[in-house]
């Protein structure tokens, strides 16, 4: 991985089990401070999960956008 700040894109559309939170946890593991993670999900549960996750891990939710066919969440990694 390069030392530059990365944009990590995660397509979690269609995941009901194990669910988008698994893809987020996976992306978090492969990320570093300064990266942004953009996650697309069809499971609406992602909205609450990502907020609770960011609070616990000390990272920042930049936006949560409800689109007709998906939820788009953008997160900035501040802590690892």
């Amino acid at each position, binding site marked *: 991985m390069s030392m530059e700040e990365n944009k990590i894109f995660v397509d979690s559309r269609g995941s009901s089990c194990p669910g988008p939170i698994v893809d987020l946890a*996976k992306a978090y593991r492969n990320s570093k401070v300064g990266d942004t993670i953009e996650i697309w999900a069809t499971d609406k549960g992602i909205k609450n*999960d990502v907020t609770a996750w960011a609070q616990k891990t000390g990272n920042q939710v930049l936006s949560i956008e409800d689109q007709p066919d998906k939820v788009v969440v953008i997160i900035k990694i501040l802590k690892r």
Partner: protein
Amino acid sequence: MEKKRVVIVGGGAGGIILANSLNQKDFDVTILDKSDTQVFQPAFLYAAFMGKEVPTKKIPKLIKKGIKFKLDPVKKVDLTNKKVFTEGGEYAYDYIVVATGTMSDASTVSGLKEIDDKYGDYHTSIENAQRVWKNLNSFKGGTIVLGQASPICKCPPSPIEGVLLTEMLINRRKLKDRTKLVFFTPYPRAYSAEPINNVVEPIMNERGIQIMTFFDLDHIDANTLYSLEGDQIKFDLPIIIPPFKGAKIDYEPKTVLDDDRFIKTDKFNMRIQGFDDAFAIGDATNIPTSKAGVGAHLEAKIVANILQGKEDKFDGRTNCPFDLGYGKGTFVIGSYDQPVVPYPPSRLNHFEKMMMEKIYWSSLKGTFDFIFNLYFRHTDPIKLNKKFSK
């Protein structure tokens, strides 16, 4: 017309179901694997927590006549030039199906390799599962910690199944008042998919299991687990599920692999990204569904249909049996467009899980296809969600 050469990499459930589903009039089928024995992996759970045997069978006995099996480890798959390189030579193909499953890699978490070598686990081998059984039987009291070391876990119900069966064993050995049982998970709740969590978390609470959420294991040192989030758990007996990655095989182009060596696969038609003649099925793929036998089974059938000229599309169906201990069970049933069903626990569900072990080997040959088709229709998540979701 000349027969099409199909090379299947991996002789697990997916690879064998696919091979047995292809019509041999049109296809010349070769399976390559580094082992000639298939292990019924769901039985690791019962070896670790109940001391049972793990059934195994030789791959050549599981395939129909005419299918070739080569005990020959694959080193490289060249998708561009349609060739597979093995230790013994090379194989050219018209179609390739990668069914290499997933492998554990304890080395990615500092301190885990030592713990795994010493205490075993219940996901990787018969010997490791037997080690867990031995440790649990010599356990006299203290803190048992159980959980998955990374967000990717083969068989997502298995961490909770393990802790529930541990509780049952400890209870039967009358050690409950001297034991603290801690379950850790990287997710916001015990089970990642909320509807089934609502079924199982109350059971865990009732049985006195402490749940540590948002505990993404970072390292282990001096009988203590440390999480990325900054929490710690001290333990006397650890039962840790190692991280999982894709098989150690090189690909040309390299870009078909993701960061964890899983193969970038179309979640509907199972084609490897950018290739019409290459497919991946089962745990080897990166598709957004559970790593479990049912996926390998259904995806193998999809690829068999596509290769034989029938249109077909995977709907992301999961159907994972979930042992809750004391003879009860549930199932994790969902699909790409249906949330997981809050399926109520019952003795019948548990019985169905036990039956799977009995019919598994014949199911690889397609003997029970009509029963499976009936079952999958009967347990359609759309129907079940109408019945059980509030």
